[in-house]
């Protein structure tokens, strides 16, 4: 029953969206809507059939579907209004949401909105890999859906560009299904994802890894029949004379995830050019009152457990906004300093404990993190592919000088 007295409307039913919807209910919202464009709840969790999920949140080593099922059950038990195969066509700054499904197009006016659209994958076209436009080029996530949900393999002889976790997971998955992964090609001098995946996806199966290489041409006019790879220099430019061809019928791309913010942009949400996602405060609220955001649409996470926590925070605050609870003032800006690529949230009250999530720009060993001059933390090793948490307690915040309006978060080599 579509009602017009909606407290919280959540866009996207991946881990962030489900957590937000459940938490909104638990925080007292009567009418919570959960809108999903796909055929089922869970977002990408349904296709992430590998394990490694829930180690923090449930203290168990679960697969994506198992992790998702816990939340799907809670959603179904919580009287949340679920709309599947429903696309949000429009979003406005004053929170008018236009939905579309087989029952028609309708505009709703919820009191709060949580944006949880997740992310999309960078494509061959946007990184301009030369060549014709043959069939057989897939992004790793789309291939994952095809293999794990639809029941089709993109090809039999695969080259994977990009050594992020999605690429490595698919290297293993396709190998187990009987395909041959001829190489994983990575432009940086190090693997992009978790060590665990490096070992259990690549080394276990003796899949050749070409570091400091990239694909410089795709061979094949109607269907891929090979790729040309070359070594790159420090500026990531191909080195002439190092070209070699690898026969294959499929190229999988794992070259970056981009927070999906078409709706945010449409509504006028301020986006951070570094993350690609909305600028948020410690309540996960955007610059538009009542519009909150969580999960990969804010910044690309590595652990789904953190996405759930973020979603819960957004859901709780969305519920509070819907019940017209007074919102605290956000007086302090958090700024990314040395070797810090970005920090989330970008605005805090400065009065309550807050967890800062961040990524570094370059890998480094033996570092000290500084938040203004109120907090430090040392770490043995940091990598851009691993998101880090810094907890600013009230004790730390009390150390702030009067009149402070911003805190710089930096990462420096010790000694």
């Amino acid at each position: 029953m579509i009602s017009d007295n909606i407290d919280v409307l959540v866009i996207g039913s991946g881990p962030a969206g489900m957590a937000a919807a459940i938490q909104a209910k638990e925080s007292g919202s009567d009418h919570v809507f959960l809108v999903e464009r796909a055929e089922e709840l869970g977002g990408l969790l349904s296709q992430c059939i590998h394990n490694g999920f829930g180690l923090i949140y449930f203290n168990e080593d679960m697969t994506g579907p198992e992790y998702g099922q816990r939340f799907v059950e809670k959603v179904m038990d919580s009287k949340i209004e679920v709309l599947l195969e429903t696309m949000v066509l429009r979003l406005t700054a004053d929170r008018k949401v236009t939905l579309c499904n087989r029952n028609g197009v309708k505009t709703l006016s919820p009191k709060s909105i949580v944006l949880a659209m997740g992310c999309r994958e960078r494509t061959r076209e946007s990184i301009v890999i030369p060549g014709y436009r043959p069939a057989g080029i897939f992004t790793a996530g789309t291939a994952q859906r095809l293999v794990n949900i639809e029941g089709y393999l993109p090809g039999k002889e695969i080259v994977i560009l990009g050594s992020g976790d999605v690429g490595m997971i698919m290297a293993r998955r396709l190998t187990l299904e009987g395909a041959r992964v001829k190489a994983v090609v990575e432009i940086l001098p190090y693997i992009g994802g978790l060590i665990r995946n490096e070992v259990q996806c690549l080394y276990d199966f003796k899949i050749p890894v070409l570091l400091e290489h990239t694909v410089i041409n795709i061979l094949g006019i109607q269907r891929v029949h090979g790729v040309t790879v070359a070594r790159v220099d420090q500026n990531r430019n191909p080195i002439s004379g190092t070209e070699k061809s690898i026969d294959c019928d499929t190229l999988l791309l794992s070259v970056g995830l981009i927070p999906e913010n078409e709706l945010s942009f449409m509504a006028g949400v301020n986006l951070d050019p570094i993350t690609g996602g909305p600028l948020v405060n410690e309540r996960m609220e955007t610059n538009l009152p009542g519009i909150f955001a969580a999960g990969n649409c804010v910044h690309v996470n590595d652990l789904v457990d953190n996405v759930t926590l973020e979603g819960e925070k957004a859901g709780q605050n969305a519920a509070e906004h819907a019940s017209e609870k007074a919102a605290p003032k956000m007086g302090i800006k958090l700024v990314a300093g040395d070797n810090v690529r970005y920090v989330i949230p970008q605005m805090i009250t400065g009065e309550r404990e807050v967890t800062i999530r961040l990524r570094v720009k370059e890998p480094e060993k033996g570092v000290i993190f500084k938040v203004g001059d109120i907090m430090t933390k040392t770490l043995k090793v940091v990598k851009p592919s691993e998101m880090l948490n810094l907890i600013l307690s009230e004790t730390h915040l009390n150390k702030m000088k009067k009149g402070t309006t911003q805190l710089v978060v930096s990462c420096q080599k010790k000694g």
Partner: protein
Amino acid sequence: MVKNLNEIICIICPLACRISVAVDDEGRLIEVANFQCKEGKEYAVAEYRSPMRVLTTTVIVGKSRHALVPVRTNRVILREKLFDCMQHLSRIKVEPPLKVGDVIVKNILNTGSDIITTSELVD
């Protein structure tokens, strides 16, 4: 006595120590080097002796609007058994309804692990 050196990359923490496990020709442990914590040392020895893995894959579903159901081993199994299990499972077909944790194959290929579903399939 001949020392055979094997390098194990530790996956316990982001340091990813390259731990060296030295064994003699009879496979007896001589030395473990280049680790930074007890857990890492234990992991490296276990991993050298007998690498164990969780297998996650899919099984074909019939009489359903779904094509596949995701499954896993409920225990770690020997790494060298992964492909045999994949072969075995490629011949199996299941039907809904299925709940998370339903056993599809008990003690698959004598590994001591069952194959259980990881997703609910109503229809």
